[in-house]
């Protein structure tokens, strides 16, 4: 049930020596919590950095993965923390339900989605994951399980959402699903010549259910922030081809591919990135306009390529994701994109998204724009990431801990004045003595 091994997050950086436990039931988890001096829960390891790693004891929650009850009146599912979002979709989409909020991969656990308080392409309308969570059962340092919600122990509830596993171990939760008529999305792509044009589209599309933009990070000058903004709506049967409308909730399954080995570093240099970006942009412009795509291709394009994190090679990669307040977004994003273009460090995945308002003790989102990009880990890109941190901080921005693998404690404190309050809360509640990750230690949380 346990063993020492190398553990990392999705970015495969940093790689750490850790002891991993695989509890099979609640009693096993209780036993671990009572026996281990310090520990952290781990879901499906999709956070990029070291937030789900504790060298002494990392608790793999994936065997606690039972769905326990479903109330079809309210669309409320009660499930254990290790259930994957993808399993929920597999079970409930055929019956007309879809997650209310989903990140860009379906391979996350319910516990991981709660701990990171994840956001989706609908944040501007529906908020973060917390807006579909009715209650959570959390195991505390004493091994006791407390059910919390907005009304019952709201302190624990609101800090557990976004608390990155640092408030205890999520055992079970109740979440509300969204009724849908089909498993298809009506997508419209809008090319934007530069950042201002992209932001303009976001600002005028506030009523779209889903919106996200892919940015070509290598555009410069008047083309800085050149992007493709994608809007989406759940399709109704009338939107579908006659063939698809026959069984609207079951789009044909897609094939899976796997990246079989680590790419050599040179596969991913500036030129390949540039070519990729140019091609992607042109293909996007060509396909702009309306399209109906299946849920899997729309929400989870990367999931079709399993273990794609290996294309960055053995050294791994890091993601930069910040959010800037609305008033500072255009200036801040411009400075960030300029710094990236200057460094010539292209990124395969640069994503821009408008967040709606959110006010919570330690969750990432706030009203404004969030930018996310991947970089292979090298000394050069690590230096660039430090520069990007400084630009974001100077523009009132803060960082997403689910993506972070290298920020310093002082950067966190400079970017987010809630960090001190969160650390104080941890001390007051006695959470800090027991629940910590490599990340929480790095960030002095």
């Amino acid at each position, binding site marked *: *049930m346990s063993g020492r091994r190398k553990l990392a997050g999705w970015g495969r950086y940093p790689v750490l020596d850790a002891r991993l436990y695989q509890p*099979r039931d609640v009693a096993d988890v209780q036993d671990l919590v009572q026996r281990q001096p310090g520990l952290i829960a781990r879901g499906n390891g999709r956070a990029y950095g070291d937030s789900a790693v504790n060298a002494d004891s990392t608790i793999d929650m994936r065997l606690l993965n*039972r*769905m*326990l*009850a*479903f109330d079809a009146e309210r669309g409320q*599912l009660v499930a254990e923390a290790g259930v994957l979002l993808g*399993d929920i979709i*597999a*079970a409930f989409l*055929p*019956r007309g339900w879809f997650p209310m909020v989903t990140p860009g991969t379906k391979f996350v656990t319910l516990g991981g989605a709660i701990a990171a308080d994840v956001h989706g392409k609908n944040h501007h309308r529906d908020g973060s994951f917390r807006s579909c969570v009715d209650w959570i059962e959390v195991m505390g340092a004493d091994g006791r399980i407390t059910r919390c919600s907005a009304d019952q122990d709201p302190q624990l509830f609101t800090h557990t959402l976004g608390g990155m596993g640092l408030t205890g171990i999520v055992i079970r939760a109740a979440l509300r699903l969204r009724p849908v008529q089909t498993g298809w999305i009506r997508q419209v792509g809008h090319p934007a010549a530069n950042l201002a044009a992209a932001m303009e589209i976001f600002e005028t599309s506030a009523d779209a259910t889903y919106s996200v933009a892919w940015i070509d990070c290598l555009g410069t000058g008047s083309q800085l922030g050149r992007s493709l903004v994608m809007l989406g709506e759940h399709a109704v049967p009338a939107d579908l081809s006659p063939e698809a409308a026959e069984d609207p909730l079951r789009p044909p399954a897609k094939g899976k591919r796997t990246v079989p080995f680590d790419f050599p570093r040179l596969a991913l240099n500036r030129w390949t990135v540039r070519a990729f970006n140019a091609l992607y942009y042109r293909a996007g412009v060509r396909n702009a306009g309306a399209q109906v795509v299946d849920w899997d291709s729309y929400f989870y394009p990367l999931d079709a390529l399993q273990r794609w994190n290996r294309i960055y090679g053995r050294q791994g990669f890091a993601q930069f994701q910040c959010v800037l307040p609305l008033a500072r977004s255009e200036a801040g994003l411009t400075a960030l994109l300029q710094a990236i273009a200057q460094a010539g460090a292209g990124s395969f995945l640069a994503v821009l998204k408008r967040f709606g308002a959110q006010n919570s003790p330690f969750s990432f989102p706030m009203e404004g724009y969030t930018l996310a990009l991947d970089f292979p880990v090298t000394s050069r890109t690590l230096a660039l990431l430090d520069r990007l941190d400084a630009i974001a901080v100077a523009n009132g921005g803060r960082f997403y801990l689910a993506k972070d693998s290298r920020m310093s404690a002082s950067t966190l404190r400079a970017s987010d004045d809630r960090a001190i309050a969160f650390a104080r809360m941890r001390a007051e509640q006695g959470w800090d003595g027991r629940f910590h990750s490599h990340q929480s230690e790095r960030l002095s949380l």
Partner: protein
Amino acid sequence: MTKPSVLILGGRSDIGLATARAFAAQGHPIRLAARQSALLDPERADIALRHDVDVTLHDFDVLATDSHAAFLDSLPDLPGIAVCAVGAGGDQEESERDSDAAVQVMRTNFEGPAAIFTQLANRFETRGSGTLVGISSVAGERGRATNYVYGSAKAGYTAFLSGLRNRLASKGVHVVTVLPGFVATRMTRDMDLPAALTAQPAEVGAAIAKAVARRKDVIYTRPVWRLIMMIIRNIPEKIFKGMRL
């Protein structure tokens, strides 16, 4: 068309549960039979929710042979497929010291499973259809110092299944013998098993569902165990008795 129900004897076993999931995914109603079956309610809910099938729980003790007929009568219907995952690894050293412990292992792996299959076989024969799946073990292919009490009981069960298959072959009733090597389950959780030879329960469950569909007689999981056991069976006794396996 509604699919026939699948009865899992030993419904708490990891292999049994994985088999239940494999059949539920195909749309079969599931009957989980176990001691203190009410405690399996979360599993019941999970299988029913994921696969949108009817799942029911039934108390069952393989050693209480007197109650087997009443147990079968109490099921909602006579199952189309019955899988026996009941078993007890036992503690070999304890079995050497204490013959009562040895008898318990033998009864749990052979006598009890053979008894319930005798009754099911007769009911299936009368109906003229059905599939019986017995989970035995590669341990039954040759007795070894480290687990011969368990192994001998599995050997008896394997022979029983083979005979039952022979008897029912012309009666529309099929019998599948499952011979797992190592499987990562509760039974083996504290053992250090070689990864390449160790199957996950889900793998075994999927293999069983496939074997039933294809009317296979004997399957090894993982398949490499067929080769390993062929070699082990063929070591001359003179040499084998001096080996430590």
